[in-house]
């Protein structure tokens, strides 16, 4: 009897093991075929894989705070080179500038103080003194992950026409020539690289995600943020009304001008 029981137990043990092994085999098989699929998709549609990698990276970063980079292209898009010009109402005006965002800051120059402020002395011509050193402007750069920019209106511009486009539009938005020049030399090479670009200047979404507070308060703040995607051929898009971005910005008293942008993949 005992022997029989042992046999039965042994059999059911073996059965149990077999089931475990088979299920492991199935999982391994599934993984294998998935990898083969990924490899095939990778060769046929590299952009799809890049997109999936980027979203995965961002999801992992979101959940665990761990920074992973599957395909070596960085994690998520970045807000590149926003520079903030501060023009004082009179020479040497003391101004406090604060930027509130949930983004990971990548770089800032000069560095903000411990309270998160840039405390500047601003001249009328925009020259800044911060901690006894002279600066042309305040510069910051960050990486965002939970913003989907508005491309419902904008422009579709041929890469080689970017020069004229920027010259015209930046003037319309209200940048002066010096600011526009710096904007152009920064973004023109990136725009010209693409066959066509879908370009949209962001307004509310940008201002909400990157809250800029100025002390003393001023209503004369112009924030220009250009988002663009490289595309292969021309598409139709409803033209954007840039006067909304300018609003009633005037170069009077204390005023702030900021420009930056982001290239979306």
């Amino acid at each position, binding site marked *: 009897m005992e022997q029989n029981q042992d046999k039965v137990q042994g059999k059911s043990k073996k059965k149990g*093991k077999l089931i475990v*092994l088979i299920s*492991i*085999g199935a999982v*391994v098989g599934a*993984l*294998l075929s998935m*990898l*083969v699929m*990924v*490899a095939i998709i*990778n*060769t046929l549609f*590299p*952009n799809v*894989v*890049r997109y999936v*990698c980027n979203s995965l990276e961002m999801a992992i970063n979101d959940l665990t705070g761990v920074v992973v980079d*599957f*395909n*070596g*292209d960085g994690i998520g898009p970045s807000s590149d*080179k926003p*520079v903030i010009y501060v023009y004082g109402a009179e020479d040497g005006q003391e101004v406090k500038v604060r930027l509130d965002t949930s983004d990971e800051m*990548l*770089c800032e*120059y000069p*560095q903000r103080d411990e309270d998160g402020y840039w405390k500047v002395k601003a001249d009328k011509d925009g020259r800044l003194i911060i901690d006894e*050193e*002279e*600066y*042309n*402007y305040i*510069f910051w*750069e960050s990486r965002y992950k939970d913003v989907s920019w508005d491309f419902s209106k904008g422009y579709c511009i*041929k*890469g*080689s*026409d970017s*020069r004229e486009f920027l010259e015209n539009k930046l003037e319309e938005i209200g940048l002066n*020539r*010096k600011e526009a*020049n*710096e904007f*152009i*030399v920064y973004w*023109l*090479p990136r725009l*010209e*690289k*693409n*066959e066509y670009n879908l370009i949209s200047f962001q307004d509310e979404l940008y201002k909400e995600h990157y809250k800029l507070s100025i002390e003393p308060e001023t209503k004369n703040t112009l924030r220009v943020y250009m988002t663009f995607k*490289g595309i292969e*051929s021309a598409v139709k898009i409803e033209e954007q009304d840039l006067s909304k971005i300018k609003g009633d910005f005037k170069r009077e008293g204390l005023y702030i001008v900021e420009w930056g942008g982001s290239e979306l993949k």
Partner: protein
Amino acid sequence: MKFNFIYVAILGISCLIVGILTVTGVQSAKNVTKVNNIQVESSARNESNESKESGEVKESSSGAETKESSTNNETSECNESEEHSIDNNVYELAKKPVIYIYSDVDDKYVEVSLDTQEKMLCEYPKRDENGIWKVVVNRDGSVTDLDGKEYNYLFWEAENTVEYDFSKGFCIKGSDSREFLDKALKDIGLNRKEANEFIIYWLPQLEANEWNLISFQTDKYTENYDLRVHPHCDNMLRVFMTFKKVDGPVEIKKQDLSDIKGNFRREGLHIVEWGGSKIK
């Protein structure tokens, strides 16, 4: 027991295969993105080349021409990407050299030409058909083209195939780049405004790396991109920073930055240029 061993062995082997495949999969994904980037860049070069060849007149081209040029681009893109996938280490960029021109008198007419074998990728303002910037400069450094449009400086960007000199330089921790640049650029002779623009362009790229090997180039750079100015200009300062990402501190003989400054003085008609290149 024997029976189980076989299963364990099979399991082990399949785990190994999965591991290998994952690694190769990730690697090939990396490669694909690399090749893609190169394709984008090479198409940019084609385009800039085309627009240079055809001159500015053609810019107002009709839709039909647009289509034609895009198909041209596609075919040449394929060729070039093949070339580059074989040998993509050679390919670097001379990024954002900007040229400031300062004059001792207002309204001075100056011609600046850049002689190089390299492919130009972008320029602002555009040079004329002979490759010359013809501008009028003022004491404050503002530059006006012949149409009366004002510029802060001349800007250009080009491909680079020269191998740069890293025999002397600096090995700097990414997080120390700020202080390093502040000091080094002062030593070289940039004024605060120029240094500020240099720093905000390069600082994010330096800080992104754990450590950098940094070397400021002299002859290798100035010979490859020969800058000529008419009327003759004695005081020319050309700053070109090359850097490589390194994993940890490495020993390198310290570079004497006063060599770059030389006898440069901010007197008379003088020219300041800064740019750089990230070496892979």
